[in-house]
């Protein structure tokens, strides 16, 4: 839902992106209208429109005249690529700097991740 301290239009754009990545909205299928977003999230329609327009500018959505907004072909792949880059910056960087303060080497971090995966798999198969 909508949180404080972050522009709402950014949050709307991110939610649509998440739905495309998760496959909730498939490529070449329609996204809800600006007014539907506004009513659902109880936000100003102009603000919702700004979020949708941002994705149009990025080529993630496109407009079919008189019908509405649709997800472009290849949108999911592109979003996953962008998010992977962001994942590196947002999670891997802080992970390694926190590890450095604790005296954990990147190699130890890597083995921690692998072990975490092993225990994780055990938990899911049992």
């Amino acid at each position: 839902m909508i949180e404080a301290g972050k522009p709402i239009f950014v949050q709307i754009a991110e939610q649509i992106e998440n739905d495309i990545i998760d496959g909730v909205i498939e490529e070449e299928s329609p996204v809800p209208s600006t007014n539907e977003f506004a009513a659902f999230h109880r936000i100003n329609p102009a603000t919702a429109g700004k979020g949708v327009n941002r994705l149009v500018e990025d080529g993630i959505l496109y407009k079919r005249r008189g019908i509405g907004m649709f997800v472009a072909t290849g949108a999911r792949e592109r979003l996953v690529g962008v998010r992977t880059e962001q994942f590196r910056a947002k999670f891997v960087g802080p992970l390694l700097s926190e590890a450095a303060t604790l005296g954990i080497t990147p190699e130890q971090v890597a083995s921690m991740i692998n072990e975490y995966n092993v225990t994780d798999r055990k938990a899911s198969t049992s």
Partner: protein
Amino acid sequence: MTLTDTDTAVRVVGLTKKFGTFTAIDDVSFTVERNKIYGLLGRNGAGKTTLMQLLTGQQFATSGTLDVFGASPVENARVLQSVCFIKESQKYPDSFRADHVFASAPWFFANWDAAFAARLVDDFRLPLKRPIKKLSRGQLSAVGVIVGLASRAPLTFFDEPYLGLDAVARQIFYDRLLEDYAEHPRTVILSTHLIDEVSNLLEHVLVIDEGRILMDQDADELRGTASTVVGKKTDVDAFVAGRDVISRDGIGGLASVTVGGLGEAERAAARAAGLELSPVSLQQLIVQRTTSTTATTASPASPASPTIDPTVTKIDAWSARS
């Protein structure tokens, strides 16, 4: 529509309003664009109601100019027909019932939608046949809210419209406002103290304090700019030096400072310096902005000087319109 075709609903330049020696509105300039929802926010006695009275021709300016749809609203039927002003305490003729109000509304508002009004009466469970004098405070507010919504005036003012309205009724008001605004775009100026409740509905924010415009900004831009920086006092002080500091707090060696205008790179720099960043809601931001300005003008030992109600004369909108 007979209105001049511009993108501006309201244009105010150097507007001042004095009541005797008290300056309620102090050299204010701003514009209101058409078909947007504005929030007019500020503390008690900041000048919100006076400003709206000036914009609806119910007060005369001491100096400065104001245009509503390209003309002065004072005694101007063409402008006033396009304006709906819902006040905190609307007075009605003594014998009036709610259904009388809604029956007479089409005389004043060309776009009145009776079916929409009837639906709102159901939503708010408003008794139509009971004398207005016998309605509860919340029901009286509901009458005003219904008039404000169903009139669909090109420029609608809501001045603290929901005194006594319960949480359900307020939510109905917000939902219906958004729904109807989406279908029938118009300019709405909403004055309220419940900033958290309405902040997501607003496209633009005007904050008034001691008769002056303190903020005039896109709501979404405002939401993204301010952050509270928390960390070791020396680190925080080093980071916020030379920045737009909104408020300052601290305990022991720990400092918590709210600053405006932080970009993505600056946020990253703060995190790299080991500082914690937390978001600031629109309400917190406005509370901090309007507190800090009074704190600098008042002596620290005494609380802010008592505010004077600038509303000396209350003109009844219904009698003023007839």
